[in-house]
């Protein structure tokens, strides 16, 4: 078996009285879609934030492609080609959709204007942004120059997802990417996830939507009370089983190498 893309062991994160991650393990394998499911507050967001450097765990170690890493900020993760769609989206409200898509990797004009005056190529960025949103089926965005704060909740989520998919090279973490999306737009995101997997880029997908999870996931990581309860193969279990495990209604299977 090849080295897992991400491997984390014994991660702990406490906030004062509150234990967000409690000695949890984590594993993402090459080319797979790994779904992470669990109750609200189980610690799903916390563990992926620990992986990408958005929070620093109190204990535990994280290996990326077998090499131990310790990110001090998500920028370092990003420079390795890791993209994250945060649950709270991480968009700059007053900036336009195009500006948000390109923060930190803007396109400059060709020729001397770009080279010496460092002038941005706004038309190119706007065209690219519009194309990506169209791919996602977000046809209701009326102007690509709109500030993000004027978008509907779902439109914003679309922007964040489009950004991650466009720029990732190592893997993508998506924290409930379809939560605010409509039926049509959710479908497009699921298709996008499959496209990205086809490009060989693995994906961590946190979601509460069981049909979606069972449709796209290769493996399901079930999180409960701050730690990994088990991982299951969606082909071996039903949605009812998964829900029963994650809510504590049923005992999980003995941890296997699934």
């Amino acid at each position, binding site marked *: 078996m090849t080295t897992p893309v991400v491997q984390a062991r014994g991660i702990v994160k406490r906030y004062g009285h509150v234990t967000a991650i409690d000695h949890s393990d984590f594993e993402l394998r090459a080319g797979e879609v790994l779904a992470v499911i669990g109750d609200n507050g189980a610690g799903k967001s916390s563990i992926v934030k620990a992986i990408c450097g958005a929070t620093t765990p109190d204990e535990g170690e994280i290996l990326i492609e077998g090499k131990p890493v310790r990110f001090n900020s*998500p920028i370092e993760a990003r420079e390795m080609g890791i993209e994250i769609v945060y649950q709270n989206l991480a968009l700059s409200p007053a*900036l336009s959709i195009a500006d948000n898509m390109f923060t930190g990797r803007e396109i400059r004009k060709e020729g001397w204007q770009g080279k010496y005056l460092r002038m941005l190529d706004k038309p190119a960025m706007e065209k690219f942004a519009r194309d990506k949103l169209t791919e996602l089926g977000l046809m*209701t965005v*009326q102007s690509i120059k709109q500030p993000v704060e004027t978008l509907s909740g779902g439109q914003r989520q679309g922007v964040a997802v489009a950004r991650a998919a466009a720029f990732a090279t190592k893997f993508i973490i998506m924290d409930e990417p379809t939560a605010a999306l409509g039926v049509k737009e959710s479908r497009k995101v699921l298709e996008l996830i499959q496209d990205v997997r086809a490009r060989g880029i693995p994906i961590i997908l946190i979601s509460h939507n069981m049909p979606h999870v069972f449709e796209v996931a290769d493996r399901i990581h079930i999180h409960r009370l701050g730690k990994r309860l088990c991982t299951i193969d969606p082909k071996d279990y039903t949605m009812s089983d998964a829900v029963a495990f994650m809510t504590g209604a049923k005992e999980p299977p003995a941890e296997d190498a699934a």
Partner: protein
Amino acid sequence: MSESATPTQKGQDFEQVLDQSDAKVAAFEVKHHTVLQRIQHVLHNNPTLVPVIVLVLSLFAFGLIAGGKFFSPFNLSLIMQQVSIIGMLAAAQSLIIITAGIDLSVAAIMVLMSVIMGNLGVNLGLPTPIAIAVGLIGGAAAGMMNGLLITKIKLPPFITTLGTWSIFFALNLWLSGAQSIRSQDIDEKAPLLKFFGNAVSFGGARITFGVVLMVAIFGVLWYMLNKTAWGRHVYAIGDDKDAAEMSGIRTDRTLVTVYMLAGLVCAIAGWASVGRVGSISPQSFYEGNLQSITAVVIGGISLFGGRGSIMGALFGALIVGVFQSGLRLAGVDVLWQVFAIGWLIIIAVAIDQWIRRVSA
């Protein structure tokens, strides 16, 4: 199990119809607009026009009150000269306020650097270009100190610059011994320090190089903020620093460059102030910090960061200049000038807010 059948086909049953869904970008007919609505629309899309309108209105108001003298080319160009130094400080201040910071030390940096230039160029007799270069580098270094304290030690900008203000002010008094350097001595030993006091005159107006410099500084900063990636990052940081960090901006590095640039602009203003004032005085521009902030806020730049155009600060500075000049020409007593300027600040910003609101 009813759900185990679905994964192989495409999603849940009710999603099958999606293939036929509409694929046009939403568009609505543009409505017939009244003139007022059109004006509102223009203002909405060009918020910088608001201070421009306030400026024009106050020009007219004072033209009426203070009479013809006010509108003479000489007086109008004089207002520009009087505004030029505070205008440059306001440009530096805008940069920082756009990042949701505030800099109480701008005027202190400016005065300190002019004192350093004077000490080196006049008192120690070094070649003037070297004196100027040291001053400019010093300005950037002072800004860098602010920036590093804010980003590395994570101090709030207000308290950082309140502290460095005292520090720079004390250094200034120490270096100058609270003594001015006389205009005549500068003319003799380092006339280049007065470069920005030179002027071209036409039709009664007198445009000093300092005024040209101020406009140029605003132009360059406007370009940097609006046409380069750095500028977008500055706005993004002011808007939501955490979001900016998470979406891949090196916020600390960008912030340090912002404070350095602001310090440099302050030092340039220090150089220009020698031309404007004639001598180098460690005591001048004591209220420059508040004045620069006033100009920025009247210019429609939000103190909460991320919003507003730097050009607004230019117009804000001019509005204040016009008020002050107009009141003096109208012969208002100093005491009531202070009173009136208090009201006029409030009213100017109220008009600004009101125009923005109807156009929202």
